[in-house]
């Protein structure tokens, strides 16, 4: 099949805060018709910049410097004029990460889709083609009236309606719910085969790339480190970066008794070496296991939640519509023993995060009660790492907040903070830094430091590893596991990823639409799921996708 | 209401509302403007300055002043004679006089009017306070008997605000419960050469020639009057030609180089720039008063205020009323004054002036403030609505320390000056100077008929007031009429403030 995209010796540098920064260096890549090429790279590797360069949509503000050649279906993109660019884009369909944001909020779907149609077919046809139910009715809807998944289907329809030769999908499923993600990937797969269209699939998720793509291109710090057929790359990775990436992967089969293997590659921040040593450590002994029997007899459960209900009032859609109330939790009961590790799993909107906030005492339930038998307050780590710290105070000061209750001298407080920072793997110098100088991983470690500087009886994690890169997630899971055992804390770990849940917790609770639908030991629940929701969760795991 | 500056009267651009119909080219039309709206055309019920020239050609009194003089002559009365004891005045009315409603005027109509004038609810009723009885023995004779002799009585009848005969349409057809006050606000039934038509209340009026006028017909067929509250706008309308004259208030500084199309007529009237002193506050202290008087001395600022169109006043009466050598000398030792002020704790005085003629009063008031400042006395200058000025006496603690204003007597007789400004309960004794001996002197002086003795008595009263530092003479300012070349026959009368005689006014150049 003839190559649709030919990129030769491409170099791109952008101006950030006045200085020109090289974002892409010596990129050579081709995408052939009917083929799906996955462009895999971590955040900051330059994968989105490559996609925008192909479209000629780099923001003027960053004064881009582009050299080398990009030919799409024979036409040259680099320093093409606005007219040529417009003609060239006629052959390209694009699907962006934020589905709702990519549609004009004040124009109905029908008109927006109509603008893209070139082959005279009706918008209704295309909506049906991408699997939207009741297409005629959807035409009059506005973007805010559709779900994320439905909007993404509209975007795909819009891309296809122009009979493109190339489709660029820039992280199309990252923002979607885990169930919806699977169905969108199947739709993209089906379209690539049936329409014989070349597809460039940009993602940071190795699992999704491995399942969906024919060929794989790994991008690290602006350079292509490895390109090849998916089968070859996964079976025999050539470059140390690929090797470390595969090592950091953890599926449902990983050994729970040992920590996850972490490659040396990341320790000297990715400069790479010949063959990186991949090692995995054993878990430390669980402190206070013996005292726990005594305590259990005295107060069997650390946290007891009985028949808890929680309702939210949505902002009024129109000035007259009666306010809509959503039942987040309906008569949910949960018990956590002292030192026990529990994972709560479910799709978005299942109420898992709401339950966690009730456990932490941040919100009050409308009905039912929450009993926490320890003297201190449970501590919590959030998904939004950067948002966990105030931008106006130094990290050290915020970590030391729990110490203000104890009458400690200033120097004693600084010593405790430095010691806790070391314990979570951060240098003491970060104490005076502000949050904008830390990476996502470092922020989560600092959040953990704040949580354990005065060890609580219960640690709560709300999707703590979902927003970070794969290898950072692995290291954080190890750290949480080590700290839990060393400090003898109980843990409630909320996630949508069953593999992470199985690894970190002894017991898994599955939630759907505000109810607990299944609960059981990790291994047993994954081997023999009873409830349909658990089975759907399992089927949507990347390595189980039947594509 | 605490005083608020009346700045906008000096604002740049004016109100020029719907002009009048240009009418047939042959018609002679005069365009004039007032700075303030005429609140009422009832000759017995308002003290305003604006509208007097119009009033004079709508309503007429029994006697008036001959142009350019303060000598009395007949108006509606052909002749008159006064009884020996000065109590009875009998007037011989002119024949063939008609009211604007067409009915002829008889002595009975005059009697009916004079009775209406004495109604207590009317502002100007006090003119006839001393009247004992009135009667109309026959068609053309009208007799007034006074309770006590009043040599100034005839002057009062000739005053700008004096009694003017109102016809039966008002006093009979529309008398109503309020002596036809509301009807007379916007309608008239006079005997003058022009009839009034209210075009748009508050903005534009029109005087149309009365065909059956008893006297010689005036030159202009119609006179358009517009209310243009900004002097700047009147100046420009005058230069553009859509305004024929400005009776009062043309900036003195601008008189030095008039544009070629304009002419000017400066004449002395009975107006007097006076400074009233509030002795109940800080200026009760004589030493401070002396220092203040040094600053007020007009010699220091007269030239910069009036550019040569004013002379220091000799006494509390205009020269046209009592010609006399200077009766008062301001202290002039500035160094002593400054030393005196330095010895005192810092003082801030309040200077006030009326909003009625804000354009003319602002600069003198601020010049005096600057003079005071040079001695180390800070002074605030505020404009007060004329209504508020009338109530200063109620609460002198809140009233200003100095009140600068341009004042007109009711008529040419010194009694009409003394009884209005100097007497204890005088209506315009702004800052409440009370001196029983002065009041007695005023009462006795009012009875003297011989001019020489009368003048000496009133000068003595003035000297007393000036010595007490109650009222101080500042300047006699010429009234300057600026008009487009071609107009003549203004015939100004000293006793009638800012009044142009529309009866004798004519235009030599062809009608525009």
């Amino acid at each position, binding site marked *: 099949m003839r190559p649709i995209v030919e990129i030769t010796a491409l170099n791109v540098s952008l101006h950030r805060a006045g200085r020109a920064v090289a974002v892409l260096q010596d990129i050579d890549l081709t995408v052939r018709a009917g083929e799906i090429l996955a462009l895999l790279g971590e955040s900051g590797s330059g994968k989105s910049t490559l996609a925008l360069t192909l479209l000629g949509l780099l923001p003027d503000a960053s004064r881009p410097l582009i050299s080398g050649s990009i030919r799409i279906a024979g036409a040259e993109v680099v320093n093409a004029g606005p007219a040529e660019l417009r003609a060239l884009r006629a052959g390209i369909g694009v699907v962006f990460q934020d589905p709702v944001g990519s549609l004009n909020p004040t124009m109905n779907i029908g008109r927006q889709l109509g603008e893209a149609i070139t082959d005279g077919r009706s918008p209704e046809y295309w909506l049906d083609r991408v699997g939207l139910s009741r297409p005629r009715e959807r035409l009059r809807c506005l973007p805010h009236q559709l779900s994320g998944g439905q909007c993404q289907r509209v975007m795909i329809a819009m891309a296809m309606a122009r009979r493109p030769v190339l489709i660029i999908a820039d992280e199309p499923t990252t923002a979607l719910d885990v169930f919806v993600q699977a169905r969108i990937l199947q739709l993209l797969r089906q379209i690539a085969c049936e329409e014989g269209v070349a597809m460039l699939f940009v993602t940071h998720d190795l699992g999704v790339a491995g399942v969906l793509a024919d060929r794989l291109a790994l991008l690290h710090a602006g350079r292509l480190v490895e390109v090849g057929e998916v089968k070859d790359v996964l079976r025999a990775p050539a470059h140390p970066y690929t090797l470390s990436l595969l090592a950091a992967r953890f599926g449902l089969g990983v050994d729970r008794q040992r920590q996850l293997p972490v490659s040396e590659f990341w320790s000297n921040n990715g400069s790479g070496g010949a063959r990186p040593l991949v090692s995995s450590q054993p878990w430390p002994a669980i402190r206070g296991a013996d005292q726990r029997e005594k305590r259990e007899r005295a107060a069997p459960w650390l946290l007891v939640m009985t028949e808890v209900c929680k309702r939210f009032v949505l902002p009024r859609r129109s000035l007259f519509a009666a306010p809509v109330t959503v039942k987040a939790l309906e008569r949910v009961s949960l018990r956590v023993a002292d030192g026990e590790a529990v994972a709560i799993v479910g799709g978005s909107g299942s109420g898992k995060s709401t339950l966690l906030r009730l456990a932490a005492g941040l919100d009050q339930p409308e009905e039912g009660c929450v009993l926490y038998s320890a003297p201190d307050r449970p501590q919590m780590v959030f998904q939004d790492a950067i948002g966990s710290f105030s931008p106006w105070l130094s990290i050290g000061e915020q970590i030391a907040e729990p110490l203000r209750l104890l009458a400690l001298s200033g120097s004693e407080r600084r010593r405790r903070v430095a010691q806790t920072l070391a314990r979570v793997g951060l240098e003491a110098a970060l104490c005076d830094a502000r949050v904008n100088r830390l990476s996502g991983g470092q922020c989560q470690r600092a959040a953990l430091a704040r949580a354990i500087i005065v060890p609580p009886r219960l640690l709560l994690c709300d999707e703590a590893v979902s927003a970070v890169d794969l290898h950072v997630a692995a290291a954080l899971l190890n750290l949480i596991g080590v700290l839990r055992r060393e400090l003898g804390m109980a843990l409630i770990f909320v996630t949508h990823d069953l593999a992470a849940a199985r690894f970190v917790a002894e017991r898994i609770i599955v939630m759907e639409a505000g109810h607990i639908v299944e609960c059981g030991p990790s291994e047993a629940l994954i081997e023999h799921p009873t409830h349909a929701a658990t089975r759907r969760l399992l089927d949507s795991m990347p390595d189980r996708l039947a594509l | 209401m605490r*005083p608020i500056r009346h*700045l906008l009267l000096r604002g740049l651009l004016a109100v020029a509302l719907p002009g009048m119909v240009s009418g047939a080219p042959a018609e002679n039309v005069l365009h004039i403007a007032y700075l303030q709206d005429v609140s009422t055309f009832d000759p017995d019920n308002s003290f305003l300055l604006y509208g007097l020239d119009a009033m004079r050609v709508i309503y007429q009194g029994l006697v008036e002043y001959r142009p350019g003089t303060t000598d009395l002559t007949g108006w509606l009365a052909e002749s008159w004679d006064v009884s020996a004891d000065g109590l009875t005045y009998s007037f011989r009315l002119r024949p063939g006089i008609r009211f604007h409603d067409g009915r002829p005027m008889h002595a009975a109509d005059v009697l009916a009017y004079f009775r209406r004038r004495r109604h207590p609810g009317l502002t100007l009723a006090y003119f006839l306070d001393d009247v004992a009885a009135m009667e109309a023995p026959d068609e053309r004779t009208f007799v007034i008997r006074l309770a006590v002799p009043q040599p100034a009585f005839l002057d009062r009848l000739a005053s700008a605000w004096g009694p003017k005969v109102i016809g039966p349409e008002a006093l009979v057809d529309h008398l109503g419960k309020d002596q036809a006050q509301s009807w007379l606000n916007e309608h008239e039934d006079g005997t003058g050469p022009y009839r009034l038509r209210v075009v748009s209340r508050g903005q534009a009026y029109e005087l149309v020639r009365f065909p059956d006028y008893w006297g010689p017909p005036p030159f202009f067929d119609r006179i358009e009057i517009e209310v243009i509250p900004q002097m700047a706008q009147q100046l420009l309308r005058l230069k553009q030609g859509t305004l024929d004259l400005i009776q009062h208030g043309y900036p003195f*500084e601008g008189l030095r180089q008039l544009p070629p199309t304009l002419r000017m007529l400066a004449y002395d009237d009975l107006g007097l720039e006076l400074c009233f002193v509030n002795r109940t506050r800080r200026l009760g202290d004589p030493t401070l008063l002396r220092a203040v008087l040094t600053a007020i001395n007009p010699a220091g600022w007269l030239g910069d205020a009036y550019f040569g169109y004013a002379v220091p006043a000799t006494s509390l009466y205009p020269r046209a009323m009592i010609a006399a050598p200077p009766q008062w000398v301001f202290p002039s030792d500035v160094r002593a004054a400054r030393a005196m002020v330095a010895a005192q704790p810092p003082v801030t005085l309040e200077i006030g002036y009326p909003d009625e003629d804000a354009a003319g009063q602002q600069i003198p008031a601020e010049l005096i403030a600057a003079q005071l400042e040079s001695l180390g006395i800070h002074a605030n200058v505020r404009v007060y609505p004329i209504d508020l000025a009338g109530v200063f006496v109620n609460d002198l603690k809140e009233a200003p320390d100095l009140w600068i204003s341009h004042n007109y007597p009711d008529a040419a007789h010194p009694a009409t000056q003394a009884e209005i400004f100097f007497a204890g309960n005088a209506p315009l004794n702004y800052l409440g100077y009370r001196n029983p001996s002065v009041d007695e002197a005023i009462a006795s002086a009012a009875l003297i008929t011989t001019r020489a003795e009368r003048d000496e008595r009133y000068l003595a009263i003035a000297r007393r007031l000036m010595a007490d530092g109650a009222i101080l003479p500042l300047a006699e300012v010429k009234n300057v009429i600026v008009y487009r070349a071609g107009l003549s026959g203004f015939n100004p009368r000293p006793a009638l403030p800012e009044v142009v005689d529309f009866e004798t006014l004519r235009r030599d150049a062809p009608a525009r």
Partner: protein
Amino acid sequence: MIAGRVACIALGAMTVLAALGPLLAPANPLLRVDVPYLEPSLQHWLGTDEIGRDLLSRVLYGMTRAWFPSLVIIFFSAAIGTALGALGAAAGGWVDLVLDRLSELFTVIPSTFVALATVAAIGSGTWHAVLAISLVWWPWYARITRSEVRNVAARPFVSAARLAGVRPPRLLTRYQLPAAFPSLLVAATLDMANVILMLSFFSFLGLGAPAPAPELGAMAARSMVSLTTHWWIPLAPAFAIFVLAFATNLAGDGLRTAFE
């Protein structure tokens, strides 16, 4: 960040110029220095006004009298507004509802008329005008503070701080209020220009300080009649107001781009 720096320099320069105004002035603004209506000359850069006082000195003094009362208004209303806004947002419940409705009422009614009527009633004077304007000006700041504090309350670091045992007063001052400072600063700077114009509006109508105080608005109004003969006498004070307002508007814009 250049825009932010330029903004601060401009504000600093204006404050210094306004502070030094009286020192730079060649003569006492209340005393007569020469004959009135003098043309601008080397001796008197802007000539003399209708009374013969030095116009340049009066304009410089006028700038001082326009600048510092405006600062007082901004400071006074910002302080009240921030306090009430933060109190409302933190207290929540009916306190918040009452404060929000009150500030909304003020933003809806034409506040200028209320201020004008207030001064018309209690009497003119610079500090009466300052009081009247501050009374109607604080709601804007209350609304900004309230919305910023409520937005940041949902952020994770506030929940984390609550769990770490931070008590409400410290939580409000150290974690929530700083979120409002950037927009408050920008609003205050831009508002400074509006207040300067509003004060000049008051004094133009004669509701500011009485004559002969050198107030720019009153000077412009009083000398309006000589616009066609000596145009610089009314234009100089009006232009001085423009310079003050323009500098603060530029500074406000600079700060806004700096914080974006």
